[in-house]
Structure formats: structure tokens, C-alpha cells
């Protein structure tokens, strides 16, 4: 079993699984461990545990749901991404609650995958996030396009925008093309496609910081006006 998935004899990927449903945790543990690609080093059932267990186990990847009791998934991701920048976070969501997913990616999640994906897809996503690739579904690409489109009309100096190439790539991801297919389509390397997607994510996270800044300034002005 083990040799089937362990690439180049590498160590198995250490994963922390956070979900409030024990049935899901068991299922994911079984999926990951039977593939031989990963081992589950801890299981948590809420956002607070996600933060604590991430500090305790220092996993390679936190695989977590967004709908969590106590601390919300998005808040937990923000904390983990700030405290432990080397820990990658992959969101495993049941419904793809759109705004939540976008928020999660903005505050530092490296990817998002639906619970309804096949076992092979989930294992593959874990593997790719571990390699440092962003994992984008077409739905998330659509959300990101919407997000950048929304501000494209407004004048806001210095805010990051997507280049024409990034737009093109994002649109292809949204149409369901894999990175390999995009690379073929555009006559560039898969690595280049990945770099573009990585940059798009960075811009998205930068946008989040601008947003917070604008909010803070706005509040300051409001207070001054009182």
C-alpha cells in the first residue's frame, strides 16, 4: 500500500484534519492514510482546536472545514496563517459557501476543495498543496474574477489588479481547464501557469490588506467627524 503513493520515497505528508463531524474525520483519515501519501497527525472538531493543534503538531497541512463551532473556520485560518506561515491550509467545504471560501483564501488558505470530490481528487489536492501549488476549483476562480471585476470600475490607487494574462488564466481555470491543459492551450509551461495562479492569490491577499486599511481609515474619519 505505502509504496503506491510515496513519491520518490518521500516522507508521508503530515496532515491535521479539522471537522465537526466525526464521520467525516474518519472518512478523510481513511482516504489519506490508505493512499500512503499522508498521515493524519491530529484531529480537531472546532476552530479553537484547529489553532491549538496546529501549534502543537506543526503539520505540513491543515485540512479543514469552514463551518466550525467556537472559532469560525476563517478566523482559525487567519490565526494559523499568521502564527505558522510554513503550515499550508486546505479548505474542505461541504457547500462551497461562496463568500466564506473567498474570505478563507484571502486570509491565507492555499486552496479549497469540495467534500463531494472523489477520494483521488482529495488526495491529489493534499499532494499539490504540499508541493506549494494553489488548488483552485473553477467555482473559486469565478469568485476571484468577480472580486477583481468588482473593483475594476472604481478608482483606488495602488490596489493590486490582475494582468491580462492572469485574467486569461483565471478564466480558463473557471472554465474547468487543468493547469496542464492551460499550459498546452497557451504554449507555456505548467510551472508558469502555477506561478501566475500563485501571484493571483498573493494579489487577492494584498487586496484584503487594503480592504482592512481602508476600513480602518474610514472608521477613523467617521470618528473624527463626530
Amino acid at each position, binding site marked *: 500500500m505505502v509504496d503506491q503513493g510515496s513519491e520518490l520515497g518521500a516522507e508521508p505528508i503530515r496532515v491535521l484534519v479539522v471537522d465537526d463531524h466525526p464521520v467525516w474525520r474518519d472518512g478523510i483519515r481513511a482516504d489519506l492514510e490508505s493512499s500512503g501519501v499522508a498521515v493524519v497527525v491530529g484531529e480537531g472538531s472546532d476552530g479553537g482546536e484547529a489553532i491549538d493543534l496546529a501549534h502543537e503538531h506543526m503539520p505540513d497541512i491543515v485540512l479543514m472545514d469552514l463551518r466550525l463551532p467556537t472559532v469560525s473556520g476563517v478566523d482559525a485560518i487567519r490565526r494559523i496563517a499568521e502564527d505558522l506561515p510554513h503550515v499550508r491550509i486546505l479548505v474542505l467545504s461541504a*457547500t*462551497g*459557501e*461562496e463568500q466564506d471560501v473567498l474570505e478563507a483564501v484571502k486570509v491565507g488558505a492555499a486552496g479549497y476543495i469540495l467534500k*463531494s470530490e472523489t477520494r483521488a481528487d482529495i488526495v491529489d489536492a493534499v499532494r499539490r498543496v504540499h508541493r506549494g501549488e494553489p488548488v483552485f*476549483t*473553477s*467555482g473559486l*476562480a*469565478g469568485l476571484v*474574477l*468577480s472580486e477583481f*471585476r*468588482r473593483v475594476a470600475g472604481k478608482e483606488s490607487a495602488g490596489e493590486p489588479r490582475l494582468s491580462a494574462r492572469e485574467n486569461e488564466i483565471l*478564466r480558463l481555470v*473557471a*472554465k*474547468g*481547464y*487543468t493547469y496542464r*491543459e492551460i499550459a*498546452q492551450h497557451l504554449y507555456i509551461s505548467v510551472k508558469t501557469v502555477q506561478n501566475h495562479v500563485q501571484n493571483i492569490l498573493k494579489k487577492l491577499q494584498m487586496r484584503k490588506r487594503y480592504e482592512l486599511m481602508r476600513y480602518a481609515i474610514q472608521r477613523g474619519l467617521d470618528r473624527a467627524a463626530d
Partner: protein
Amino acid sequence: MAAINASGTSEVEPGMRGLWLGVLVYRWATFVWMAAVALALTVRQDLRLPGLALVAVLVILAWNVWLSLTGGWERTLDRRIDLGLALALLPLSGLVMNEEAIRNTLFFATSFPATAALTFGAGSGVAGGLFAGAALSLGLVASRAANGLPPDELTDDDWGVLFNGVFYYLSAGGAAGVVRRVLVRSAGERSLAVEEATRQREKAARLAEREALGREIHDSVLQALALLRKRGKELTGPFVSAEEIHELVELAGHQEQALRVLLSEPHAEAPEGMVSLRTTLEAAAFGVQGVPVSVTTVGPAWLFSTEVKEVQGAVRQALENVAEHANATRATVFAEALDGELVISIRDDGGGFDYDEPRLAREGKLGLLKSMKGRIEELGGSMQVHSAPGRGTEVEFRVPVRRGSDDG
């Protein structure tokens, strides 16, 4: 005051009409009184210029008839002429009456000039009403002068009568202005309230629609779950075929998709007569057998409800074609509004083919493509197919976004 009706169609109308009617009644009542006084003064020979008095009465009569028939008080120019006539009438009253008779007999102009202050106030507000009242007050002083009583010869009693008149003119103009202001303001508030009520009604209707959809889907989800549980128990038995298991999985998949659609909150409220493009595409993708379909849209985009059927039909055909022939593991519907067009792409990762229209026509495989194309061209749009063996297929529909409201 006229009853305020809540039709909301004309905002100032109902209340204002009442105000104008009141002023009009006052105008005619005072005019009749003025004519009666003129007659009495003539009979008692209190007039030194009865001919001029008659002309004045006739002019005022003609003017009142004109105003009443044309609704002239709504026009600024007519209100100014009205005030001018009233102003002229005051010194004229002094002129036609015997010298100093103004002191001890009925005043020729009576209280008719106040109607100009009322009209001015009702037409242009408090400031206008007060202005007209002040102008008439000066006219009143002039009427004494014209009657041989310059200000320095007026007694205390004369001044008392004058101040009475001044107070009367100012309060008439000011009061009419206040009534106007109240009416305009309450009309504004009423129209806001009507708008808000309409919005609430529409919102409630949409929520009800959504709830109905929710019930329907919940119901089918519950049935599917019940079926899964029942059949799931049998799965442990020896007589369950792979096909049946596959069926159950498909069933679960459809319900999951339906719930996902329901749970994805609408981003924005649809403009009237329009339907969310996303909802339309989700509906087209719902229940497609044989290949998982995901739907992605960028931002809110809308279709005229008259366009929904064709778009949904074309997308559905494309997806069914993928499910039947493409041998794909997944299909994606992607749509966005781009430069005045809705771009809808249906992409699969299947075998792909050489898109060669003449050859497809010869092989009799063009029927479905033609049908999809026909639907989209019906809407003034176009269809393109990108495909190559081993590269999957992308069908792209472009539909112009129309701005008209009823030409769909």
C-alpha cells in the same frame, strides 16, 4: 382639505387641489361681495367715478373667469398678473370713492385683494405669500392717499384700520404658504412610504418563491435520503447489482447539487422582468445524467425572462451532448457578462473531435449543433465550438445584453 388618497400616482395633486379649490371659493365669494358693495356704493352715490368702478369690476370678473377656466393659478406669470391687478385695485378704490369716504363707508375693493396673497402663497410658498401680503399692504396705504388721505393726515383710528388690513394680508399669504409646504412635504413622505411598501412586497414575494423552491427540494432530498437508507440496508445483502449502487450514488449526487443551488445565496436582487443567469444555468445543469457538472459565474448577470427558455435549452443540449458522446469526467459551465455580451461556455475534458461543419453535416451529426445554434441566434447571439481530438470541447454562446425593457 381634500382627503389624501394613497394611490401614489400623483404626488402633490390631491392635497394641492383642495387648497386651490379653497382659494378659488374665497376668490369668488369676495368678488361677489365686492360687486354687491360696488352696487350699494353706486346707489348711495358714494362713488365719484362710478364708470371706472364698473370697468374695474368687469375686468376683475373677466380675470376670475379666465383663471377659473384655465387653472391659471398654477402658472407663475398668471399669479404675478393676479397680484398686479389686486395691487392696482387698491389705489383705484381710493380713486373711485368720494374724497375721504373711505373712512366711514364700505371699502370698494373689500377683502378681494387678499385672494392674490392667498394665491401667491399657495403657489410659491411662505416667502412668496408674505411678499404678496407686504405689497398689498403698501397698496392699502396708497388707497388712502388716492382718497385724499396722505399718511400724515391719517388719524389713529385710520392707522388701526390700516394695520388690521396689513395683518390680514400678511397672514393670508403666509398661511397659504405654510399649507403648501406641509402638503408638499407630506406628499414626499407618502411617496417614500409607498415606495418602501412596494419594495417590501416584492421582497416578500421573492422570499415566498424561494421558500416554495426550498420546500420542493427539501422534499425530494428527504425522499432520496429515505430511499438511500432503505436500499443502503439491502446493500449488505447478496443480491445488489453494481448498477443499482451506481443509481443510488447518482441519486445522492443530484440531491446534493440541488441543495447546493438552494444554499448558494443570491448575490443581488434581480431587476424587474429579469432572471439570474446563474439560476438559469444551474437549472440547465440540474439532473444531467452521466457527467458531473459545475456551474461558475462571474458577478451578477441577468437574462430577460423571455430569454431564459432558449438559453437554458441550448445549455442543456450542450451538456446532454457531453454526457452522451464526449466520454468526459467532468463538465463546467462558465458564464460572465463581458463588453455588452453574456458569454456562456460549456467545457468538457472528454475526447474532443475535429470541428468540421461540412463533414459533420455529411455524417448527419450536425442536427444537435444546429439546434443549439438556432436557439442562440434566435436571441441575436452566436455560437462557437473549439475542439480538437484529445483536447476536450468548449462550446461558447455569446448573447448580446439588451437594455430595452419589453422588446424581448
